[in-house]
């Protein structure tokens, strides 16, 4: 540790200058050999300078209607071009543009072989059998309540090596590049990072972190479609979604550019989804196959709350200015999700490599339309349930003009500019370059009005603490409106008494904020600044003061400005909600679900301790359940099995070891399936931004805005199956800080067996339960 030498931003810039071809002399000019932070020296900039590429906006997968009749002559996934590559890009696009075939079904489709079976036979070994769908077969991974939540819309994609976008999804964008800011003359009509061409398409966008940087090769990034921009799923409540994901990666696992596994399983983070569609770590599928994930899009509490649909807030946009009421608890409505790979041992590598997308879920209260039936106009009128968060108004729902997804992720690349990952650095991997939506230090044009930003930390091990400031370093005020994608009871103003800037944002946490730019003159530049400094991937080392972050007084190159907003004039009338009307003591956004003290007292309690295992082995990646042994991941082991319908109180704690400065480890703990309410942190009330919030990532550790222990109340309803709980520092997760838990039917006697996927099909092995 002591021998590690920090890489200062000055030294970094000097080496960047060197890379640009200018001779630099003097000590420290070359920081090669430095281990901080990536272990591979600074990622070269190829002459790129900050804030000279436009930020990409996420591209919608689109929502197509599920066909009712299968086309018997429909083509199959195009053949891989060899053992070392996937299909031809043009053929793949033609295929993806066809209606889906075969039709989705309740049990995994094993009637057809893997279309690549012959090629796999050449590259691996002849296959006696195989299946077109990689979902584990039979009843255990059959879609639960299939006919009740039959998918109405679908998107199909293939995870593939990096390639040029052909504009495949232009027609699927809800805005069609024709309305609002996406229409001609709008700020976002042109989707290109260099603003070239006539606009209205993502055709010809290549995968680069900056226009001056090299194109990423097909082994460097594996993304949905294999293309940039990164993708976004649009969904609304009451409309079940089928996500058909093909695996079009190379059959040869060696062709991975140094990291990433060619087997996939996709987890929809905090989706209220049945186990078979949760992306269980051991339910992975192989090249050539697809997996049908079915996301029912129901409100939690569907079976027990608001059964008569009398609650006007529990509703979904009907596309015609009205709403359709649905059963369930509107207090549990969700808004900003993401989904990403969850492959056993390889989650960090695969997510880093590009298997990650965001998901916006729309509802009557979060409609993505800022003018229809606004709540602030008549808070007690049952027709005015729409919170009218900044979005736009051209479409009935799902406007993204002023509602912007930001996927923040640190990356590193090698001397050729190709994405780099250190698979041996299991303390946690850090990149030295911060990207937003896949672009290194981009700029983004905004109107002088209110915006909603849905900020996701999509990193492997890096935490952020984000400040928003003007060029002069003055903080720009804003409100947090959703925590982990769930709209809070009240908006929380920043700066506030507990934090000047956004709270620390651990991996996978989402913060939705509303910022008003109306008081900034056109031409004003505003910056997102990271204040959390790391020197390794175990935890953030220290908080850098804003003035130091702005004057390069820090060692971690990922600290400082990473996104520039450029204010442009706004000629419209901003009718979006003013979050100041929704702070505590004023109007309510989404009240917390009711939990009575009696329920909490009666709840089953479980404790999960993240930290060193017993014994002398230096193994900081285990989870102890209820004071038991520190266990590592075994997908066969069911560490907890709450019954469907129950409420439980789980304690998440960090191991504190007197001999070891264990504050040296921080863990953003994620529990699948259900967001929870933090009852307390270290026995005290949670901070402002967590008190009216529903969370699905629970940070523990020594860094600011956390604590060593917390209690969270969770309910398990509607579905059963295999789920997980893990550290979302995915390098920690992949080193076993991961456990399986199941939701069981009350009285269920058989645990779901453990799927063991294989080229020829999925086998099942017995699961076991270490203790009751």
């Amino acid at each position: 540790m002591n021998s590690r030498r920090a890489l200062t931003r000055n030294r970094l810039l000097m080496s960047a200058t060197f890379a640009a071809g200018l001779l630099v002399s003097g000590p420290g000019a070359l920081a090669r050999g430095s281990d901080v932070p990536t272990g591979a020296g600074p990622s070269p900039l190829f002459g790129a300078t900050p804030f000279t590429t436009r930020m990409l906006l996420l591209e919608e997968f689109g929502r197509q209607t599920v066909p009712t009749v299968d086309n018997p002559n429909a083509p199959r996934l195009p053949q891989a071009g060899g053992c070392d590559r996937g299909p031809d890009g043009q053929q793949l696009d033609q295929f993806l543009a066809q209606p889906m075939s075969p039709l989705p079904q309740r049990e995994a489709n094993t009637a057809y072989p893997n279309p690549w079976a012959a090629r796999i036979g050449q590259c691996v070994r002849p296959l006696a059998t195989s299946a077109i769908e990689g979902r584990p077969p039979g009843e255990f991974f059959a879609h639960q309540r299939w006919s009740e939540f039959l998918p109405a819309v679908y998107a199909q994609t293939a995870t593939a090596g990096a390639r040029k976008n052909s504009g495949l999804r232009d027609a699927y964008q809800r805005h069609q590049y024709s309305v609002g800011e996406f229409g001609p003359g709008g700020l976002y009509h042109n989707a290109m990072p260099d603003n070239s061409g006539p606009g209205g398409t993502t055709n010809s966008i290549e995968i680069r972190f900056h226009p001056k940087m090299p194109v990423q090769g097909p082994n460097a990034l594996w993304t949905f479609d294999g293309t940039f921009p990164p993708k976004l799923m649009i969904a609304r409540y009451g409309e079940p979604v089928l996500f058909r994901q093909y695996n079009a990666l190379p059959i040869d696992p060696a062709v991975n550019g140094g990291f990433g596994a060619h087997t996939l399983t996709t987890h929809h983070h905090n989706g209220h989804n049945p186990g078979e569609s949760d992306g269980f770590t051991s339910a992975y599928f192989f090249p050539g196959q697809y997996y049908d994930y079915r996301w029912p899009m129901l409100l939690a509490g569907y079976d027990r709350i608001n059964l008569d649909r009398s609650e006007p807030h529990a509703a979904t946009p009907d596309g015609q200015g009205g709403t359709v009421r649905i059963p369930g608890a509107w207090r549990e409505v969700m808004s900003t999700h993401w989904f990403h790979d969850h492959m056993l041992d390889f989650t960090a590598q695969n997510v880093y490599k590009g298997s990650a997308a965001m998901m916006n879920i729309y509802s009557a209260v979060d409609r993505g339309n800022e003018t229809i039936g606004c709540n602030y106009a008549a808070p007690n009128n049952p027709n005015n349930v729409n919170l009218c968060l900044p979005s736009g108004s051209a479409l009935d729902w799902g406007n993204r003009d002023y509602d912007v997804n930001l996927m923040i992720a640190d990356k590193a690349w090698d001397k050729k500019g190709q994405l780099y990952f250190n698979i041996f650095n299991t303390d946690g991997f850090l990149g030295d370059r911060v990207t937003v939506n896949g672009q290194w230090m981009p700029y983004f044009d905004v109107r002088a009005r209110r915006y909603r930003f849905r900020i996701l930390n999509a990193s492997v091990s890096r935490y952020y603490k984000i400040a928003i400031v003007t060029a002069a370093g003055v903080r720009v005020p804003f409100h947090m409106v959703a925590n982990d994608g769930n709209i809070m009871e009240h908006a929380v103003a920043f700066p506030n008494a507990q934090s000047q800037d956004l709270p620390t944002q651990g991996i996978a946490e989402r913060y939705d904020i509303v910022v008003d730019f109306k008081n900034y003159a056109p031409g004003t530049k505003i910056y997102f600044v990271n204040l959390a400094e790391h020197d390794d991937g175990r935890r953030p080392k220290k908080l850098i003061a804003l003035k130091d972050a702005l004057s390069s007084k820090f060692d971690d190159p990922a600290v400082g400005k990473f996104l520039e907003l450029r204010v442009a004039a706004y000629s419209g009338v901003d009718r979006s909600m003013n979050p100041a009307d929704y702070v505590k003591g004023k109007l309510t956004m989404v009240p917390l679900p009711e939990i009575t003290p009696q329920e909490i007292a009666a709840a089953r309690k479980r404790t999960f301790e993240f930290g060193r295992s017993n014994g002398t082995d230096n193994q900081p990646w285990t989870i102890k359940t209820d004071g038991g042994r520190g266990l590592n991941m075994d997908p066969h082991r069911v560490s907890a099995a709450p019954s469907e319908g129950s409420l439980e109180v789980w304690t998440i704690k960090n191991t504190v070891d007197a001999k070891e400065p264990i504050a040296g480890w921080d863990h953003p703990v994620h529990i699948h399936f259900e967001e929870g309410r933090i009852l307390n942190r270290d026995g005290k009330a949670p901070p402002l931004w967590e008190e009216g919030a529903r969370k699905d990532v629970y940070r523990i550790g020594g860094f600011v805005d956390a604590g060593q222990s917390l209690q969270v109340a969770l309910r398990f309803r509607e579905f059963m199956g295999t789920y997980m709980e893990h550290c979302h520092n995915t390098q920690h997760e992949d080193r076993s800080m991961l456990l399986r838990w199941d939701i069981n039917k009350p009285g269920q006697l058989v645990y779901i067996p453990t799927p063991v996927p294989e080229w020829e099909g999925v086998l099942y092995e017995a699961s076991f339960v270490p203790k009751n």
Partner: protein
Amino acid sequence: MGTAVARRSLQGMAASVGLAMLAAAGPAAAPAPAEAQASASPWHGEYFPNAKLVTQDGKTVRFYDDLIKDRVVVINFMFTSCRDVCPMDTAQMRAVQAALGDRVGKDIFFYSISVDPKTDTPAVLKSYMQTFKVGPGWTFLTGSQADVELLQKKLGVAAVTPASVKDHDTRFIVGNEATGQWMKRSAHEHPQVMADLVGGYLFNGKVKDTKARPSYSNAVQINNQSEGAALFRTRCASCHTLGGGPGLGPDLHGVVNKHPQAWLARWIKEPDKMLAEKDPRAVALAAQWRNLPMPNLKLDDDDAAALIDYLRQETRKTAKPEHTAQAGRQGQ
């Protein structure tokens, strides 16, 4: 880099050494086509050191060229005088080896590298192997302190707070050098899970998995395991059976009737101390079992009680086994 790329190109890596320098040459260079820019996996000879190590037979070998190149390997770090977790790790690795059968030494290679080279001479390693009845295909190695530390660092198991050799990271490093896929796994997981990973997944499923598995439709009711059962499975089963005959250590069927409970509880908790104190029963037992040290697994009173309870139940539940592991063994 040249050799690695050439070798890797057999597997279809579209890498070009010539073009490799292009991108680094300067920002003005127009990016070459994507294919030409692909970076080969860096986890080969350029990454791994060729550190010189000495085997238990006194043979000098180079880490990269002789031990891991083009191989599927399982590597751990240990030291022979370890009295707590290492003996169990070795026993676990032995169980993985057994699960992989004769593939170990053919297409899978096991390496245990000492972190205490001062003590662990080749002769000491050899004797340790005999104590543990280590099968072929598993090499024990020693080397200079600096080289061993370098290897720990390169393999990502350098201790975070290296207070002493005892604080070494005991995880198993498993990888396929040819494909560049590496993972770390706990020594405490089920040996079969590790064997499937090493013999199956790391070979890209080239070797067909022929293990019999029940069809999902025949899945049977699973009883919740007691705490003692879980402890036995994860902490004892790599050396002991319950009625299955002797392993590295004695068959524990009926053991609850052979020793006073208080003695047994202490033996489970701190066998190292009892041996150091020359407790007569402990010394006699150790002598019977090749002086293979019963490890101190940091179990507490509750753990010991749960284990004894489990051993008693299992002894009562099953009939006295046909074979008796030890002369003088008592029945139930």
